[in-house]
């Protein structure tokens, strides 16, 4: 338990991940689902950024006169965060485009209502 108090960034990140995950899983509103997805991804980036930072060290950009490796933090976690952001932007854009299409077709953002409408439409096709 003691670690939780010291690593509070990581603790917050994991809690946020849980909030985002449940949002994506359980919300009926499609836009809220996508917001949940973004909270989930952002939590992971917070976790990475917090893990990657070492107190007292510089960002990994060479400053004149300071050459030792021990003066800088490792650039890889930041690189992973950037890659992750690119991925989550594209996934979000794709989901939003899909949701927009569904809204134009069914005029609602509630997933349950959409499923009922889609089932009705399919039933109408068969008869």
């Amino acid at each position, binding site marked *: 338990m003691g670690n939780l108090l010291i690593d509070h960034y990581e603790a917050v990140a994991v809690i946020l991940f849980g909030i985002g*995950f449940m949002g994506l899983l359980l919300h009926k509103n499609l836009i809220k689902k996508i917001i949940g997805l973004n909270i989930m*991804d952002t939590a992971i980036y917070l976790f990475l950024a917090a*893990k990657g930072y070492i107190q007292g060290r510089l960002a990994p950009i060479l400053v004149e006169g300071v050459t030792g490796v021990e003066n800088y933090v490792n650039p890889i976690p930041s690189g992973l965060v950037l*890659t*992750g952001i690119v991925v989550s932007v594209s996934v979000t854009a794709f989901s939003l485009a899909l949701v927009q299409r569904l809204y134009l077709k069914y005029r609602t953002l509630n997933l349950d209502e*959409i499923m009922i*409408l*889609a089932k009705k439409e399919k039933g109408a096709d068969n008869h």
Partner: protein
Amino acid sequence: MPFVYNFPFFSIFLAMLAGIITPFLKNGKMAQRVSFVMIALVGAMSGILLFSLMQDGGASYTYMMGHFPAPWGNELRAGPLEALMALAFSLVMLLCLCGGLKDIFEDILPEKQKFYFIMINLLFSSLLALVYTNDVFTAYVFIEINTIAACAIVMAKDSGETIVATLRYLIMSLLGSGLFLIGIILLYGITGHLLMSDIQNQVVQLASTGRYAMPLTVVVGLIALGLSIKSALFPFHSWLPGAHGSATTASSSILSGLVLKGYIILLIKLFYRVFTIEVIRELHVNNILFFFGLAGMIAGSLRAMKETHIKRMVAYSSVAQIGYIYMGIGMGTGLGVVAACFHILAHAFTKPMLFATAGALSATRGHKKEFHDLKGSAYDNKLAGVGFTVGALSMVGMPLLAGFVSKLYFAMGSLDEPGRMWWTLLVLAASSVLNALYYIPAVIAIWTPVKKGADAPVQKVRPGLAFVFSVVLFLIANFALGVGFAPVIRVIESGLSLL
């Protein structure tokens, strides 16, 4: 380094390149030709690579991207297993596209057809990357590319039903990739590496000293959970029947034959190359996969029995077949995983054939897909009827066909582990009976003659050249895997021993 060792990189790059140039092509027909040439080239390269690796008595190697050494650079890894999977994936991809070619050009708007092929090319490159990568973060990036491309080929048939199915698929997939991402980030946190072989060294040390035991368990759980959601292991399969049942024929074939398998191959690679099978067994993660697999084998089949829609029935049968594969991985013995890998191939060569022939059969009845509409449809497209019958028998486990060999090896694998033998054999037998209980009535239905001039609009469809090519090759592959399985098993065994 021999020149053939560049082939994994060339394959991934070629597939991406084809995806990039496709938007500039004139129409869907051109895009289709470019995709076909690319997939055939990748298949040929994988075949040559496999041959040369087996010539060297089963060799494997890691390939530095851009000659940057370990902690900075990215790496690929290829061995017999990877080359075999890449070869099988390219063959199946080509045959899936051929089998559903007519439906692609009928179901998708003409101006959007070339975009369908962009997605196919990207999907293919991400599958190859999942097979070949040696870096867990690269694996994550390509998982996301795979997700988007797979969702896009489902929604290509632009109807309300498919868009809803796509959205459900997308949500479940994103939950899976979120879990996978936090898993690898935690793993990076406790080991400090992203390349599989480096992580393995650290994991072995951590396991022997007992440090970070809890985080390691959580990591294995998160990664296994994430990948099993994405590969539709029971009880996370709720998205599969909708997505596979409503998409256009080629998309259904590709999704069930290839997309699910890409994630499973990655999971096997992670189990062997990152966590090592000893650690997995110690953490009992394989037991959980084993029981979910057994549950899926029964539950998927039971649900398929109730289904009256031909494509949804075949889709539910995929849930059962994925259960078989996870049962094999969950056995945690060498032979179990060999059987799982063989079943990946058997299923990849059978299920797309079932989807392609089901699509062709329903085309003879005005694209109706309920069984009572499909009565006697096999007489109007005999090749499709034969293909569906052979595919169904293979899934049931008829000797001389691919499905039989994997069942045989699953049963043999279970003998190594006396504690689980009865479970495995019992469920295997029960599941085979259940398979027969829904496939045989389906086969009987399509071969039941109906009186001409009944109310259903019957049209004789002359199968196109591409469709004939695809079904005939699928049939040959099924018999080849069912009769000449020994060399394939040998390749899988040597591939797994090198992992």
